[in-house]
C-alpha cells in the first residue's frame, strides 16, 4: 500500500514537472524529458533482449536449453540463427568509419526485404479492395428516414457548394447577402431533395449515398492528378474533390481534438483518483 503510494507520488510529481512546460520551458521539464529518454531506451533494450535476441539468437547459437530440452527454436539450427545474428552485428560497423561500408550489406537485405514484402499486400488492401468496395453497392440502411434527410441535406450542400466554387470563387467577399442566399438555397434544395428521395425507395437513398461516394472518390483522385492542367471537366472534378477533402480533414480535426483531450483527462484522472484518492 505505502510502496504503491510512493511510486504513485513519483509518477504524479513527474506529471507535474511536464505540465510546468505550459508556463514556460524550465529545468523541471528538461529533467523529466531527459529522464524518460534514458528510461525508455533502457526499457526497450531489456525487452528486445529477453523477448527476441535471447530466444531467437543467443540460446539457439549457444545451444542453451529451453524448457528442459535442447529444442531447436521453430526448427532453427544453431547456424541458421548465427547468420542473421552476425549480419545484425555488421550493422554496428557504422561506428568505425573505415569499415562502415560493410554495414550496408545487412542493411540492403533489410531494406529490400521489407520493400518487397509490402508491395502486394498494399496493392490489395489500399487499391484493389478499395476499388472493389467503391464499385459495389452498399449494404442496407437501417433507418431510411434519417438516412434520407441526411443524404438530401448533404446532397443539397454539395450542390450549392459546387455551384459557388465553380461559378463564384469568393463566397466570403460577397458578404452577408450571399450567405443568406446560400442558406435559403440549401434549405430549398434540401427540401426538394428530400421530397424526391421520399418518393424513391430506401434503396434510392442508398444509391444517392453511393453516387456521392463515387463522385467524392473520383474528385479526390482528380485533385491528385498532376499530368494535366486543372481545367474543364478535370478542373470541375478537382474542385469537388477539394470539398470532400476539406470535410474529411474537418472530421479528422474534430477527432484529433477529442484525442488530445482524452489524454489530458487520463492524466487528470491519474492525479485526482490514483494519487490523491479525491474521487
Amino acid at each position, binding site marked *: 500500500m505505502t510502496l504503491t503510494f510512493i511510486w504513485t507520488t513519483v509518477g504524479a510529481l513527474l506529471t507535474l514537472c511536464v505540465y510546468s*512546460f505550459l508556463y514556460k*520551458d524550465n529545468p523541471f521539464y*528538461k529533467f523529466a*524529458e531527459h529522464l524518460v*529518454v534514458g528510461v525508455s531506451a533502457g526499457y526497450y533494450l531489456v525487452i528486445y533482449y529477453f523477448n527476441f535476441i535471447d530466444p531467437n539468437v543467443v540460446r539457439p547459437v549457444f545451444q542453451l536449453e529451453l524448457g528442459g530440452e535442447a529444442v531447436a527454436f521453430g526448427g532453427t539450427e544453431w547456424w541458421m540463427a548465427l547468420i542473421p545474428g552476425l549480419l545484425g552485428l555488421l550493422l554496428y560497423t557504422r561506428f568505425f568509419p573505415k569499415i562502415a561500408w560493410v554495414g550496408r550489406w545487412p542493411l540492403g537485405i533489410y531494406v529490400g526485404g521489407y520493400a518487397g514484402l509490402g*508491395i*502486394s499486400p498494399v*496493392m*490489395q488492401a489500399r*487499391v*484493389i479492395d478499395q*476499388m*472493389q468496395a*467503391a*464499385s*459495389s*453497392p452498399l449494404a442496407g440502411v437501417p433507418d431510411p428516414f434519417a438516412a434520407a434527410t441526411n443524404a438530401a441535406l448533404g446532397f443539397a450542400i454539395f*450542390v450549392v457548394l459546387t*455551384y459557388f466554387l*465553380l*461559378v463564384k470563387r469568393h463566397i466570403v467577399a460577397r458578404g452577408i447577402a450571399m450567405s443568406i442566399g446560400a442558406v435559403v438555397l440549401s434549405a430549398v434544395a434540401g427540401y426538394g431533395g428530400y421530397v*424526391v428521395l421520399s418518393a*424513391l*425507395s430506401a*434503396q*434510392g437513398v*442508398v*444509391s*444517392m449515398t*453511393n*453516387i456521392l461516394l*463515387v463522385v467524392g*472518390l*473520383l474528385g479526390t*483522385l482528380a*485533385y*491528385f*492528378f*498532376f*499530368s*494535366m*492542367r*486543372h481545367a474543364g471537366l478535370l478542373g470541375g472534378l478537382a474542385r469537388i474533390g477539394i470539398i470532400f*477533402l*476539406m470535410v474529411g*480533414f*474537418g472530421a*479528422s*480535426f474534430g477527432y*484529433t481534438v477529442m484525442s488530445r483531450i482524452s489524454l489530458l483527462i487520463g492524466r487528470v484522472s491519474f492525479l485526482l483518483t490514483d494519487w490523491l484518492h479525491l474521487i
Partner: protein
Amino acid sequence: MMRASLAVLSVLIVALSCGWASAQDDPVPIETGLAPPDTIPDILPPAPATDLTAVDLVDNDDAGDKIELTWTLSPDDAGGMRDVTGYYLWRSESPDARGDTLALVVAGTSSFVDDTAVPGVPYYYAVTATDGTSLSGEAAFGPVSGRRDWFTVSRLAVLVLAAIFFALVLAFTRLAEKGAELFVRRIPGLNAIEEAVGRATEMGRPVLYVPGIGEIDNIMTIASLTILSHVAKITARYETPLIVPTARAVVMSAAEEVVKEAYAEAGKPDAYNPDNIRYLSDAQFAFAGAVNGIMLRERPAANLYLGAFWAESLLLAETGFEAGAIQVAGTAMVSQLPFFVTACDYTLLGEELYAASAYLSREPKLLGGLKGSDWMKIITIGLIVVGIIMNLAGADAFVEWFHTN
C-alpha cells in the same frame, strides 16, 4: 449554361439511382413446405448427397497434401425427412472400391478439407449421408491428386495490376532519363511560396524554412530539400536571410549543402550565412519550442513548413499565425493537414508535396513515380466506372475477378 448542366446532372443522378435501386433488389427466397413431424418410424435411408467435387487446395504453404471436398446437402438434411445426422467421407486409390472412411462430419456441413493426401497420388472420393442407422447411396468424384502449386491463381489480379503499374513507373522514368518533356502541372502552392518570400523581401525580414522533423531517409524530407534549394535560390537573389532550423543532425548537414550550392548557383556565394542553418534538438517538443522562440525573436515574415510533421505542426503554425507571418505548409502526414489548412495561408496537400518537388527538380526518378501513379489513377477510375456499370447491369463477375484471398 451552368444551371442547364446542373439540371442535366440532377436528372442523370436520379435516373442512375433508380437504375441502381432496381439492380439491388435481391431475389426473395421462397419458403419451402415444412416436413411432416418426425413420428413415423425411421426405416428408410436418407436421400443421398449430390454433386461431390474435389479440388487440389492451394494455400499459402502448399505442400500438395490438401484436397477440398464440396457437395450439395442431402434433401433430407434440413428439409424432407430432416433425419440426416451426418455425412461419411470415403477415400480410395481405385475407382472400384469405396475405400477407407476419411471422416464423419455433422449434418449441415457441405465441405471438408482432406489434409492427409500424398502429393501426386490420384484419389477417388465418395460421400454418403447417414441418419444414424442407415447409409444413403453415394456421390463419387475422382480421380484427383494433390500438387505443390507454383502460382496462386486467385491473386492474379494483384499481379496483373502491380505489373501494369510498375511498367508505367519504369517507362516514365526511362523517358525522363532520355530527356523527354513530361508534363507536370504547376502546383499553385509554389506560387504561394514565391509570393511569401517576395513579401519577406519587401519587408526586409527573414524567411523561415522548417524541413520537418523526419529523418533524412524519409521521402518527405527529401522532397522538402528539393524545394529548399528552390527557395534558397530566390532568397539568394534578393539577399533575404533564410533561417533553416532542423531536428536531425544529418538533415542539417544535407540542408547546409543544399543552401550553399543554391547560393553559389545564384551567384551570391558570399550571402550564404552558415549560422542560419541550425540544429536545435532531436526532442519533438524542445524543437517546436526553440522554433517558436526564433519566430518571436527574429520575426520572420514568411514561415514555410514543408516535410514530415507530427504533433508539433499545431504548435508551429499557431505561433506563426500569432506572429503575423505569411505561412505556407506542405506535408504528406494526413493527420497533420487539418492544422496546417486552418492556420496557414496555403497548404500543399499530401502528394502535392512530391509533385512540387518533381516539378522543380525534373529528376527522372521522381517524375517516373509521379507520372506512373497518375496513369494508374486513371486506370483505377476506369475500373471503378466499369465496375459500377457492370453492377448496374447485374453482372458482378467483373468486380468478383478482383476479389482475392
